[in-house]
């Protein structure tokens, strides 16, 4: 290891009632890629917020040394000035602005009192070349994919002469190509003198890219491992992260699939939109007690497919026949789909799934209030009872069901989201990226739960961009590419290579 660019010594950060960081020590060497791993709620993001000045000096205990100097940041502006840039999971770009406006937002190049747009565009072009992104700097960010937006974020950081780049789960929303692209860029940047800290749940990535890995658990540093000494492997990381060994994160289940079809889309479903169809000629079926995986790249149309059978809340025109338990159905609103026995757990639990300012019980009962209401009046006691049942059964870690969902960790939020839709008591459960951004322990719990549900006869449609998950959990796999189903594979025949081939065809 070279000389440390960053040393965080004995950092302790307390929130009312919780010690989020407890005497954490974290040291990053110059010109390395240092991965920070740990379960959700382990304190990774908090540590990075302390570092970047989101939690200003004085609100935590301990010292931060950057390039050998003690730092006392009062805000993000201070840490940026020192050469630290942080890129969050939720991208902070402004969709309606152009690429070059976004790159220099907040530190515009000025001539006198005015912004020098020509120089801005020239410099933006330069930054884009550095991140190997060939887009028109004048394009609007909203017209670009997530992968490209991620690179623009990095370009923005580079334009601030960053020395230490922090990435919070940069590949969570990226497909495999974009992820590889991003990781190789980080390697290039390392050779150009940019040190990176990467938070990630994708252990394979961590292993492929990290020089050093630090594991956090329950707000404490568990260990720091040197990849070049061969200390880093998936089982080792998982062991340190969860504090126990998980042999197989995809639990086995006894097969008792029936041949009875629970849900079928016939005669080619199509979603029409003025700019061209989102879905074309889609037909598939789901049997009782079956987990059907929908694999494909981001933006291939899987979410739109799920929404179109779930009462089409997007308001596009949907054509095609939908049969549930053999009966033909036409849904105009999600309400009708729910009544017919469907449930949809969204991929974006914060923006579309949960009401973060409401508590656990209100979120769990929202989609099925009639169950605990009589003549329109909600029975508050019954609500607490129901919520507590799901809290116990799903092992939701929360002080009480009166806790605001926004205060829970990602994994527990996802469990609340699941609880909400299980309370609807569906026949067919649609899970859209059920384990995105949640830790290994919670993933395992969700997989176990899924197995339990299909054994009770529920059918599950699982949309997932993580191929190991698709292969580990599905009974059958459909591959979606550019709005079409390009293949159907029984699990016995499915391999990563075959799926990727179909997904890119």
């Amino acid at each position, binding site marked *: 290891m070279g000389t440390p660019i960053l040393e965080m010594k004995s950092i302790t950060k307390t929130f*009312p*009632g919780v*010690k989020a960081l*407890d*005497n954490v020590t974290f040291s990053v060497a110059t010109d390395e890629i240092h991965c920070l791993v740990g379960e959700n709620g382990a304190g990774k993001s908090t540590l990075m917020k302390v570092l970047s000045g989101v939690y200003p000096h004085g609100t935590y205990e301990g010292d931060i040394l950057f390039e050998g100097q003690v730092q006392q940041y009062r805000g993000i502006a201070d840490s940026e000035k020192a050469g630290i840039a942080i890129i969050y999971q939720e991208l902070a770009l402004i969709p309606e602005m152009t690429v070059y406006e976004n790159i220099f937002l907040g530190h515009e190049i000025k001539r006198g009192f005015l912004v020098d747009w020509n120089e801005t565009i020239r410099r933006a072009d330069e930054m884009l070349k550095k991140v190997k992104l060939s887009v028109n700097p004048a394009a609007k960010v909203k017209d670009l994919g997530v992968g490209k937006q991620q690179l623009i974020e990095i370009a923005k950081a580079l334009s601030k002469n960053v020395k230490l780049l922090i990435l919070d789960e940069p590949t969570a929303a990226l497909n495999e190509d974009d992820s590889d692209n991003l990781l190789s860029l980080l390697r290039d940047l390392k050779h150009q003198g940019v040190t990176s800290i990467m938070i990630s749940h994708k252990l394979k990535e961590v292993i492929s890219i990290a020089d050093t890995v630090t594991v956090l*658990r*329950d*707000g*404490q*540093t*568990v*260990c720091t491992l040197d990849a070049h000494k061969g200390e880093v492997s998936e089982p080792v990381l998982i062991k340190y992260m969860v504090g126990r060994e998980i042999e197989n994160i995809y639990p086995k289940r006894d097969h008792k699939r029936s041949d009875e079809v629970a849900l079928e889309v016939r005669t080619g479903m199509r979603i029409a939109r003025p700019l061209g169809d989102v879905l074309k000629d889609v037909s598939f079926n789901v049997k009782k007690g079956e987990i059907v995986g929908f694999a494909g790249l981001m933006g291939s149309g899987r979410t739109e497919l799920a929404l179109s059978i*779930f*009462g089409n*809340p997007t308001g596009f025109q949907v054509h095609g026949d939908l049969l549930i338990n053999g009966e033909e159905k036409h849904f105009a*609103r*999600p*309400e009708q*789909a*729910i*009544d017919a026995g469907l449930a*949809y757990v*969204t991929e974006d639990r914060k*923006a*579309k*799934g*949960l*009401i*973060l*300012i*409401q508590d656990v019980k*209100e979120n769990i009962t*929202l*989609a099925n*209030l*009639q169950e605990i*209401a009589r003549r*329109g*009046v*909600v029975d*508050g*006691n*019954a609500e*607490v*009872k129901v919520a507590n049942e799901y809290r116990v059964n799903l092992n939701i870690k929360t002080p009480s069901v009166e806790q605001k969902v926004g205060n829970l960790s990602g994994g527990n939020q996802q469990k609340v989201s699941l609880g*909400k839709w299980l309370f609807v008591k569906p026949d067919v459960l649609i899970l859209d990226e059920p384990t995105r951004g949640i830790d290994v322990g919670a993933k395992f719990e969700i997989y176990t739960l899924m197995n339990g549900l299909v054994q009770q006869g529920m059918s599950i449609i699982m949309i997932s961009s993580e191929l190991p998950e698709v292969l580990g959990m599905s009974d059958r796999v459909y591959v979606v590419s550019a709005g079409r189903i390009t293949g159907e594979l029984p699990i016995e025949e499915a391999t990563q290579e075959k799926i990727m081939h179909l997904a890119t065809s």
Partner: protein
Amino acid sequence: MAVSTDTGSKKSSTGLMGELGKRFRSNMQTYTIILALVAIWIFFAILTGGACLQPQNVSNLFRQMTVTSFLAIGMVFVIVTGNIDLSVGKLAGFVSVVVAYFQANIWYNLIPNQPYVAAVLSIIIGLGVGVLFGVMQGYMISFLQVPSFIVTLAGMFILTGLILLVTQGKTIPANQAGFDLIAQGYLPPLVGWIIAAIVVVILFWNMTRSRQRKRQHGFELPSIALDLATTIFYSLLVIAYVWVVNQYKGVQVPVLLLAVAAVIMSYIANNTRFGRYAYAIGGNREAARLSGINIRRSIFLIFILMGLLAGIAGIVLASYVGYGTIAAGQGYELDAIASAILGGTSTLGGVGTVFGALIGSLIMTSLTTGLQMLNVQPAWQYLVKGIVLVLAVYADVAFKKNR
């Protein structure tokens, strides 16, 4: 390697004070605003040498807050769903002139010497006008998807025009016997005491029933001392209020109407599916939509409800002033919005209480009447109101940040 230290949670303090403290922290915003109200009263009590706490002044204060309060409790629902209604002031004003017109020109010819029938018919017409306008605005907002800000801004213009058309620029009297009771009537002291007794009985009955239900469900019961303390506190509040106003003329009819409306609205907000859906829509519209909530229907109904409350406000206004004037309801929408926001309603949607809006409205009215008693010029009254509104919201923002 890890240094394992026990970071187990601290034992929660028990006992009555501990539980009171917990309740206080969880409803901090409501209590802060109540404290602000008390502070304002103490301030005026000192400056007026106690005059503002005399029964007559207290009685008038509560009577004066009623019109905007009807608007404010409806506005809570509107803002909670992420909408706004700028037309309510003028709608109340329009209802008041329509009612005055019927009182002065129509019933007089159709059913002479039937003041009470005329009053009832006026009320029905007033409510009808309010609801009809609510239906029209609600339809445009929910089904035609025109933003509420624009629909109700347009509504405000249209209603201003309609008021001028109905009044022909003149003032219409609406002080006929019977009709004036709505806002100017007082209950005999004995009736006031009977109502107070009924309310106290209901409060205690509610407490025991709630405990019973919780026990049936096998929940941990809140301490009996705390429950009793709260119930006794609210009972004393009701008794003290009736005692004070009885020293003047008795319980004011419009305040009683407002209390009933507020209790119903509060119940709708907290205990019905309709209320829950309103908060869900404001809290996260997409999540609400995907949860099967019919957003259009909910918002449509909320604007109808707002129209109904504006109708009530208009009727009370006509009876209170005794006239339908061209300036009726001018600026009331702003008072209503300010009251709701003072009371903790979030302009981002999803948060707000009917009770808070009432306290907010009481603060606004207290400022106006208090400053009037001190003979402060109207110009300064506006300045003070504006400053208090901004300070209150700033205090709330700063407080949330530090938490």
